[in-house]
Each structure stands twice: as C-alpha cells, then as structure tokens.
C-alpha cells in the first residue's frame, strides 16, 4: 500500500509517463533517476524530464493466479514487460486481452486505469497499464 504523499509525488510518472533523459548520452530512464548509470558524474545536472510516447512492444509476460489484494477481482490477469519506443522498459498489467491472444513483440499502448485503493473510504490510485493496439 502506498502512502498519500508517495502516490501524489509520483502522479506525473503514473498518469503521463514522465521519465528522464540523460543530456550526455541521450539514454531514457523510467522511473526517473538522478544520475545516468552509464555517464555517472558526466550526467550530473544534465538529467532532463522526458515524457514517454506511451507506445511500445511486449518483451515478455506472465499470467497471475495468486493476486495482490487490489487485483483480486481481475484474476487471472497478465503482467507484462514492455520495451517502449524510447528504449526503456516498463512493467505493468496488460488488460483487455485474453492470455491465449498475447504474443511476444505485439504492439501495445499505455492506458490509464484504476490500480487500487487505500480502502473503501480511502484514496483511489490511478496509473498506467497496457492495452493491445487493435
């Protein structure tokens, strides 16, 4: 479970896919990093915000049968690793598709869905998931 301040701090990452780009080597990172692990001190002060396009290809995936509590109503569901167009990988749920239709390399788009909630009277968490490009 996330605390409210943590969720609030990460809203731009979760709703808009805001990562960073190294001003030295142009590598993109998501979630954002303070320093480029390749350029190290060369990148200090050169990391700039970069909003991802939201488009990518499926690298690998698995079907989850023993869920986290927030995902109970979605069982079974698919978790995927996606190579975004910016050469950065993201992990997220792949929705609106059955497991037997999923293929490695398929094109996916980011969509914003409900990720869970603090409690029935608590805040609702929204963020990115992936949908197949149809």
């Amino acid at each position: 479970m996330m605390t409210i301040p943590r969720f609030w701090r990460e809203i731009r990452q979760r709703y808009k896919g805001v990562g960073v780009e190294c001003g030295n080597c142009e590598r993109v990172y998501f979630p954002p990093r303070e320093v480029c692990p390749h350029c190290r001190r060369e990148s200090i002060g050169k990391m700039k915000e970069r909003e991802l396009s939201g488009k990518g290809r499926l690298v690998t995936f698995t079907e989850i049968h023993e869920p986290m509590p927030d995902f109970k109503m979605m069982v079974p569901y698919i978790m995927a690793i996606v190579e975004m167009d910016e050469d950065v990988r993201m992990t997220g749920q792949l929705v609106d598709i059955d497991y037997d239709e999923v293929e490695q390399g398929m094109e996916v788009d980011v969509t914003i869905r409900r990720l869970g909630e603090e409690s029935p009277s608590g805040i609702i968490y929204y963020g990115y998931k992936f949908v197949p490009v149809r």
Partner: protein
Amino acid sequence: MKTNKKVGIKGYAGYVPRYRITPKEIGEVWGKDGERMGKGLNIISKSIPSPDEDVISISIQAAKWAVMRSEILGEDIGAIYVGSESHPYAVKPTATIVAAAVGATPYLTAADYEFACKAGTAAIQTCMGLVASGMINNGMAIGADTSQGAPGDALEYSASAGGAAFIIGSDDLLAEINYTTSFTTDTPDFWRREGKKYPSHGGRFTGQPAYFKHIAGCTQVLFEETGAEPDDFDYAVFHQPNGKFPIKIAKKLGFTMEQIGPGLLVPRIGNTYSGAVPLGLAATLDVAEPGDRIMVTAYGSGAGSDSFDITVTDGILDKRENGVPSIEQVISDEVFISYAKYAKFREKIDTGEW
C-alpha cells in the same frame, strides 16, 4: 442562447469499455424473458466496465484522444468540466485527475457536474460561455458514466458505461455551435439519494412528463428562436435511455431514421447516461461532411434538456484522419461475458473483505 463570438468543437473522442452482456443473459438470472425485454427496449447488448475502469479512467481515455484530435497541448486548456452521476469520489473532483492526466494543470479552472444524463451537455454550455466571453481559449467538456441498475430492476437491462470528451474553442474548429437552448423544470422522475448505490425511478413517469416533454420543449424552442426546421438538419442526436424513446421523439418532432441513425448507439452499447448524447454526437461527427448540420438534444432526469444547433466545418476532414479511433472502431471491439463475470466486474460479489 447565442454567443457573441464564434464558438465550436475543436476536438472530440469517445471511449466505451469492451465488455458486453445481453438482455437474455440478465433475464435468465431473474426468471424474466430477457430477449423479449431487450426487443421491447431495442437493446441488443450493453457495455460493462472492467474492474479497473470507472468514470475517471473512461474520462481520461476520451480526454487524451480529444486533445490529440484537437491538435492543441494539454496546457492550452483553460477549463475542464466532467459531467457524470457516477463520479468515483463523492468529494474530490474527477476533473482534477483528468486535468493532471492530459497535462492541463495547474493553470485552469475545473469542476465536476451532476445533472443525471445531461451533465455532459451542461459542461459544453459552460465551456461555450467561458470561450465566448474571452475568459479562456479552450475548454474541455466531458460526459461519462458507469451507472448501475439495481440487480433485477428494469434499469439493469440498459445501464451501461462510456463517455466522450469535447474541446470547445473559437478557432480551428471542426464544427461550429450556432445556437443552444435549455428547458428545465423540477420533475422527480429518476434520482439517487446520497450514499445509495443504485438509483430509483418513477417507472412510467419517466416517459411522457419527463423525457418527452423536456426534449420536445427544448428542441421546439430552438426551432422557434432560430427559424430552423427538421428538414434543415442532416443529422439528429437525442438522449437515448433505451432504443425506443429516441426513435419515438425523433418521429414526433419530424426527424427521420436516416437523420438519427449514426448517433443511435444505445442498441449496441446500452444507456451510457451522461455519455449517451456526447457519444452519439461524436459518432455523428465521425460520418458528417463539411456543411452538414446536426441537431442535438440531451435529457437529464430531475429534469432538463439542452439542445444544440451545430454546423460541421472543413476542419473535420483533417482532424478525422489524425490517428484518433472513431466511435465505430471503439465499440466494434466487443467481448460478451456471463452474468457471473458481470457480477464480479461490477462488484456485486461480496468477498468478505473490508
């Protein structure tokens, strides 16, 4: 009501969840002839949101596509109003979350609207006023719902989910809004009390003194004030709580099936409440040509109607081809599910937690 300055639609898009259930499947659970019920309501299937979809996620998807079609930046939006009767929060605006998702924060005004099924068109009128007065350059109006009928109630056969977003501005328009009228009375035909999960309604009282009186009153006042007649319009969109009412009111007002055809989505997706007229207008804009004129009248219980006289401009041609899916593309992706899965998706199953 006519604005002093030209206003219209710069971008639009709609989103409808892909899951569907048939009236037959619902009827089997409650010992009713669902197929007959569906025929009576002219509903073949209704849309169902998956467990991770609600008015906020539906609004965000429609809003992102509408911004893309309008070819403006999120930060160019000066106002966002989201009309719905199923906002996920009772207190905390849907509009702020949509604003953050499209990059419109922080320099904008925003609020949520509620007026049963016409909150989305009330949002369009508000944006028209703000744009025409020069207070903002672009406003976004959204109508979206994930309403539910109580299990076993007649509403369960029609209450569905979906929504559409419109960017309202004064330049680079794809359609101009020539005129708008409203017709509002205190009519208790349908309501939901604070804290209650399902709405209540006055049965047959929702027809003549409610839906028909308000839509006819609002449309006729638009005809009187503009001098327009049904024949002057290429298309018409009326609120569609079922597939029967909009056909009946269209005929009564002098419109043909050809005029209302493209915007009549309810037989395939059910009653999307605040999303119904916005989605019907979006589907009509998808097929309209420059110069076509569209008559739109929404209805919200409680009760009131908003009418719009819209003329499509040349701008539609480029903006139709810029990668945003059409309503037909969105709603043709459909997956039929059982009542059991529907009950799970709509949280009608008590897992014993919390």
